[in-house]
Each structure stands twice: as C-alpha cells, then as structure tokens.
C-alpha cells in the first residue's frame, strides 16, 4: 500500500527523480537479535524480530521505552557500539547490512538509508551553519562543489517548509526554533534522496502543535523523494493516523505485526504494549 504523492516535485533537481522507485520490499529484517554483554551476562535488547519495509510505505514501530525499537533500528544502521552482539540479517538491495564491510555500509548510510534523530539540537553540530551541515551530507557521498551542495541544501530546506531558505543556510542551529531544527534535520535526511528513512521518535522533543506540522511535512517530503519511512514512536495516535503497517514491540520482541486496522481493532497480543493504557488519550485511531 503506497500512499499517493502529497505534493508534486518542486523545481530543481528533485525533477529528475526516476518516475518509478524500486518496487517491492526495500528492507527485510529477519530474526534480528541484539545483545549487550554486561558483567551479569548478556542483556537481550532485541529478540528475534523480523519485519519488511516496502517501497514508499510507512512502517510504524511502537512500544514502550526500552522495548528495543531504537536498538533494532540502530543495529540496521550499524550505529551500535562494537560491543553489541548482533545476529540475524537485514537485507537491503540484495546485501545483508549486518555482514557487509564498514566502508560499504558507510556508503549506504545517508545516501540510501537516512536517519532522523530525536533531539534536533544535539544532533546538529553547534559550530557549523545549518547549510554547511546539509551540504556536508551531500558531499559525503558525491563529488560536487560546495556551491552546488549549498544550492541543494537550500532547495531541501525550502521543500521542508523553511521560509527564506537561501538566507537560512547561513544560520546556526541555535538560531533555529525546535520545529525549524527538526525540519532542517529532515532536509538533511532527504537531501541525498534516500530509499529509506528511519525516524527515531522525530517529534518527541517538540510541542504538540509543532509535532503535527513536522510529521505532516515529513510524510510529504518522503513522498516527494519516494522514500519508505520507518517511524519509531510511542505515540499510538500518530501511528494510527499515518502508518500503513505497524510493528508493536515489547521487551525486545515483536508482539504484534500487521496493517493498522488489524493491530488496532483486532489486537492478538495478551501483553499490552504498555503505552496505550496509561495514555490519557484514546488508543483508537484518530482520523487523518
């Protein structure tokens, strides 16, 4: 189930997107297990989790704190510390991300698979301008001039709804508001037009009204570049309203998997995910 494009491509290099993005499954995670050795033995953070992400779809991963949703994504990105023991497979483009070399994985990161972090302020380097940081994302993977990279950065900021994008390139992260920072992070994630974006609780650091705006923009630009999105969150309302499929995690295991309607109206798990009950809001899907 691929969402219709919310916005047509704007002018600039977005135009030369291929008309069709790869069909079918983009990322296939099988039997992923992540453990961290401690003095008291191995701590299993993720146990035997499998899921697929199809092209262009939104997969919501929900679960309470410590349920392993972030760790499973970091494992896929190869960003866990060296001490982590990872088994299973994560197939992307015919290659197992958990087996390929560091160099090959680095080449995929940011170019094919991008990540958006929780706190946009600490995710940006305070000593570089926003424009320089987005341009760096381009130049990490392509041999283009700084000028060209900055032009793309401006285009992406504009796409993400930052007014006066060209002038904002010269701003520092601390001069942006929280919402603008997260928009800039989204711009940084999509600037290389990845096929998959992993957003790790992208709106947790924002207030509720800005959350909605930023999420809407995220869904919009993801369709513009034609990327699939893995949305990690504990906000069931967001998942219910936007995701195509949902994976519910609890204590490192995938306890529920399936379409949004299936999971929300016919839950199979006897173990509650832990985040619906204490929430003052209804766990029922919110329209839109």
């Amino acid at each position: 189930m691929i969402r219709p494009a919310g916005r047509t491509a704007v002018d600039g290099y977005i135009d030369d997107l291929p008309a069709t993005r790869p069909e079918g499954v983009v990322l296939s995670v099988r039997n992923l297990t992540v453990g961290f050795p401690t003095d008291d033995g191995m701590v299993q953070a993720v146990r035997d989790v499998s899921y697929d992400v199809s092209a262009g779809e939104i997969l919501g991963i929900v679960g309470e704190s410590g349920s392993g949703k972030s760790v499973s994504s970091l494992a896929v990105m190869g960003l866990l510390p060296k001490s982590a023991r990872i088994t299973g497979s994560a197939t992307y483009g015919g290659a197992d991300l958990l087996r390929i070399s560091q160099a090959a994985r680095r080449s995929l990161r940011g170019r094919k698979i991008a990540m958006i972090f929780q706190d946009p302020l600490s995710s940006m380097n305070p000593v570089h301008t926003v424009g320089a940081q987005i341009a760096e994302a381009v130049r990490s993977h392509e041999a283009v001039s700084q000028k060209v990279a900055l032009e793309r950065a401006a285009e992406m900021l504009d796409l993400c709804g930052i007014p006066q994008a060209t002038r904002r390139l010269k701003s520092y992260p601390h001069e942006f508001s929280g919402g603008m920072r997260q928009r800039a992070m989204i711009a940084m994630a999509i600037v290389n037009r990845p096929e998959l974006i992993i957003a790790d609780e992208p709106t947790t650091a924002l207030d509720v009204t800005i959350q909605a705006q930023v999420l809407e923009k995220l869904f919009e630009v993801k369709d513009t570049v034609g990327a699939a999105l893995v949305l990690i969150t504990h906000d069931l309302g967001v998942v219910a309203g936007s995701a195509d499929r949902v994976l519910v995690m609890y204590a490192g295991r995938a306890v529920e998997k399936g379409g949004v309607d299936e999971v929300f109206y016919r839950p199979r798990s006897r173990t509650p995910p832990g985040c619906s009950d204490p929430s003052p809001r209804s766990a029922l899907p919110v329209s839109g």
Partner: protein
Amino acid sequence: MTAEATPTAAEEPTLVGPLPGVEVEREFTVKARTQGELVRRRFFRHRAAMIGLVVLLGVILLSVTSIGIGPVPGWWNQDYLATGSSVDGGRPTLDLTPEVVDGQREFIGPHPFGQENTGRDYFAMTMRGTQQSLFIAFSVGLISVLLGTLVGAIAGYFGGLLGNVLMRITDLVITLPLIVVASVVSFRFGGAGVGALALVLGLLVWTQLARLMRGEVLSLREKEFVEAARAMGAGPWRIIGRHILPNVVGTILVSGTLWTSSAILLETALSFLGVGVRAPDISLGSLISDYQAAFQTRPWLFWWPGLFIILIALSINFIGDGLRDAFDPRQNRVRA
C-alpha cells in the same frame, strides 16, 4: 536513484512564506553577520587581547627591523657581536624625560640599552635574543599543538589498542622530568642551534594537550551530532576534522598559546642553566644567565631581557584569552 544526479539549474529557490498566500515582507530587519566577521569583531573588541596583539607585534617588528634577519640588514647601526669602547660606563643612553625637565637633548643615544662589559651594544643583543626566543617559543607552540592534537584526537576517537598505546607513550613522556631531559638532550645536541632546541622542547611538552584533547574528544564523540554525522555516512577522518576539531578550537588555542609563552620561560630556564642557547648565539634566557653576576653593578643587563620576556609571555597569554572568547559561537550574535 544513482549518484550522478546533479542539479539542473542554479536557480534561486522560490521563497515560501510560513502561510500560503501571506507574503512576509522582511523577515530579517537587521543584517546578520557571518561567523568570520563575528569572530574578528569579538576579538578586536577584546581590550586585553588587542593590547597584547599590539605589544607582541611591536616587539616582533622592533626585533626584526632593528638588527635585521640573516643577511638582511636592519636600521640599527650596531652589531650584536661587535665590541666597542664603553660610553658612560656602559649605562643606557635611552632618556625618556623631555629636554625641558633635565636639559638633556639626548633621546635614544648611541647605546639606548647600555653596553655590556666588553662594550657590545646591549640593544642589538637584546633584539637578537628576542628574535631567537620568539622563534623557539612559536616553534615549540606549533610542534606541541600539532603533535598533541593529532595524538589526542586519534587516541580519543579510535580508542582501543591504538588509543591505549598512544596514551601509554604520552604517560611515559609525562614522567620524564622536563628540565633534566631537555638539558641532557640539548647538551648533547646543543651545537645544532635553536632549531634543535625548539624541536626537543616541542617533543617534550605536547603531552598535556594530548591528554586534554583525548578527554574532549572522548566526550564529543558520544554527542548526538557525531552519531548523526555517522548516520549520514561520514567517515572517521571527516568526523574528526569537521565535527570534533572545530568544537575544540578553544582548547587547542588556549593550550597552544599557554605553551608558547611557557616555552619562552622554559628556554630561559634552560639557557640560564647553560644548556639552552649557547654563546656566541644569544637568547633572552642566555642574556640573563650571562649577566646574573652583573646584577649589582650593571642591573640594566638584567632588566632589559627580563622586560622583554615578560612582555612577550604576557601578550601571548592575553591574545590566547581573546581568541578563546572570540571563537566561542555560543556567545550572543552581534547585530548591527
């Protein structure tokens, strides 16, 4: 999607207002300044740093132009090696009191800083000593900053066996008593001149900065923006160069300037012990050492090099202070 995609046109992106249909007339009512302008501005507004800069530049200019460098002659008519007849018992002829007060026309005179016991012009000697001491100080600062930053950054970022080996080497160098090793080494290679002395000192004092850098890098590499850079596909050298080093510029600068000014004092100490710069060459330290016995009879032989040592060390410290304040981007942005 492949990497060959390049932007088709360098068009200015259309400006989109926060609300469709509502045109924002001017979002920026004042001109924002670039970071370079801000750093320069903050530095030039730092009074102590400006005084330090002026004094240091003045000392450098005076020492370089007066007796010249190498084959290039300066404007001062005396050579620092030539002996001569003593004028007025070798007292300084510099007379700063105006003519109307003491009735003497003389301002600079033939030997403004006086003469030493064989009649050599002490101004020329002090200038030569200043040149050599400055050369040693800046060389030591540069060598220790380069080495310390490199070792600290590699040990901090990569850690593991490599980091451990590097830090154990650092520990080893720290345990070496600086003065003793420096005096032994420079006694052995003393004939090789000030360049060798600077190298020896530089190779001994980088350790503090290396430890400092390792600590800073250890904390910075756990920052989320470094993880974000990794998630973006940046390699380790790009992360060190682009994300970590710019965040420790303050530490590097302050440490570098501190070591530059303490190198002056270190060189003075070594020369005083007779193992630093040796005759016929001159440094500020060797001047003080050579004429310590004359302190009772000709105190100016002691005061002039001392004054220049203090001027150089203080001004470099003030400049370092100003640089650190200026490079901190978290200070308030100044708008005009």
